[in-house]
């Protein structure tokens, strides 16, 4: 008798798209709030964004149970860091921690596609983009998730990012103002919602700047 194989998968894709854009003194992190499975919508109001530290905000799409577990691990590690160092983790430090946490499960990965946004130690906007096993780089903007293939080319066009091959390296943060960046993000999601079935319902935008953190919402198509 041939060995029985399990007919369940430990993974599922709960969809959604996340975007982050770094500015001179702000960072915009946005995601839709739709959670799906297969061709069904589970809920229209689920936040994929979490504030991990004063100046670090993470947005993740992919398998929701793994995303939540990852968030909890990072939250716990940040609390320990605060106890040990009596200060908040900087965004670049959190970026390294996220990478290490993901690689730790290299052989049973967190199915999470992350974008970490915040302010670096100089107060400039920073965005870090990841794959599921922790490979990361600092960029001026990024998009992950089901709508990323629709959004990334648009951002490449609008933000005219300098080539990473240039020497000396040119700064990737956008010269756009905060409100211009927010409008750009809204346009990205409205467009992605049109063609990606897993993106829609509502857009949540988190803006981090010197004055602190603020949230904006916008309705998206629900079909």
């Amino acid at each position, binding site marked *: 008798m041939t060995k029985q194989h399990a007919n369940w*998968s430990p993974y599922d894709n709960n969809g959604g798209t996340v975007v982050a854009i770094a500015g001179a003194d702000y960072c915009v992190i946005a995601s839709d709030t739709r959670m799906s499975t297969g061709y069904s919508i589970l809920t229209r*109001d689920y936040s994929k964004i979490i504030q991990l530290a004063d100046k670090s905000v993470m947005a993740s799409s992919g398998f929701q149970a793994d995303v939540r577990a990852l968030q909890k691990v990072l939250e716990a590690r940040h609390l320990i860091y605060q106890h040990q160092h009596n200060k908040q983790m900087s965004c670049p430090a959190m970026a390294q921690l996220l990478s290490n946490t993901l690689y730790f499960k290299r052989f049973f990965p967190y199915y999470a596609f992350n974008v970490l946004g915040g302010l670096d130690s100089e107060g400039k906007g920073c965005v870090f983009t990841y794959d599921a096993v922790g490979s990361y780089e600092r960029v001026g903007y990024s998009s992950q998730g089901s709508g990323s293939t629709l959004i990334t080319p648009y951002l490449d066009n609008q933000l005219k990012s300098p080539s990473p091959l240039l020497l000396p390296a040119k700064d990737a943060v956008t010269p756009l103002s905060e409100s211009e960046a927010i409008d750009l993000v809204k346009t990205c999601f409205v467009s992605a919602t049109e063609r990606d079935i897993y993106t829609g319902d509502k857009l949540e935008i988190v803006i981090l700047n010197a004055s602190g953190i603020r949230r904006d919402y916008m309705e998206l198509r629900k079909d």
Partner: protein
Amino acid sequence: VTNSAPSMINLIGSESDSQRTLYPYVTGTSVVGIKYKDGILLAADMGGSYGSTLRYKTVERLKTVGKHSIIGASGEISDFQEIMRNLDELILYDNMWDDGNSLGPKEVHNYLTRMMYNRRNKFNPLWNSLVLGGVKNGQKYLGTVSMIGVHYEDNHVATGFGNHLARPLLRDEWHADMTFEEGVKLLEKCMRVLLYRDRSAVNKLQIAKITEEGVTISQPYALKTFWNFSAFQNPTAGAEGSW
């Protein structure tokens, strides 16, 4: 949630895995839940199917958890019984502190989520989709967890077929602050559609109500069904003379 990728096969099975869950045996079908003015309403039928046989018809799939919550389960009934053993122990230890504090629905839902996710991590899942509803300190809470740990809260939730048949009805007709009568009527509408269209549904259901005052689970009852559609009256009327 089927899995046939060649890369997964070796990860999931090995020599000593005769103990791991491969597939469910006795299963319950949909659970539907809604928030209403005074609290939460859950509905589930009392069927326990054994594959395609409707084997058990008195399975209680709605249970109270402490003073503030109710749980509804679909999927493998024996795994639900295991979950109840864990929850009962959790509540017992909570009561033994005797400190005036009690676990609310949010806490119980989090516990369930961690339990389901951790079993999924060990490739030995509890084969259930759970609904957890409750009220504590005036705050209403309604959440759900799947067998691989996917969880969320919403104003209305459903498991299994309920996601396909009941949620659309709830999206259309649910509104905030429904009365108890309106809530029961809406849930019965959902359960009736499920009875018509879900092969594993049985016409014997319970409705559970939870408010700040406490929990009540109704006695089992049956829904009226309507088959007098004109198309069913004389189904062969158009067939005379045809083959």
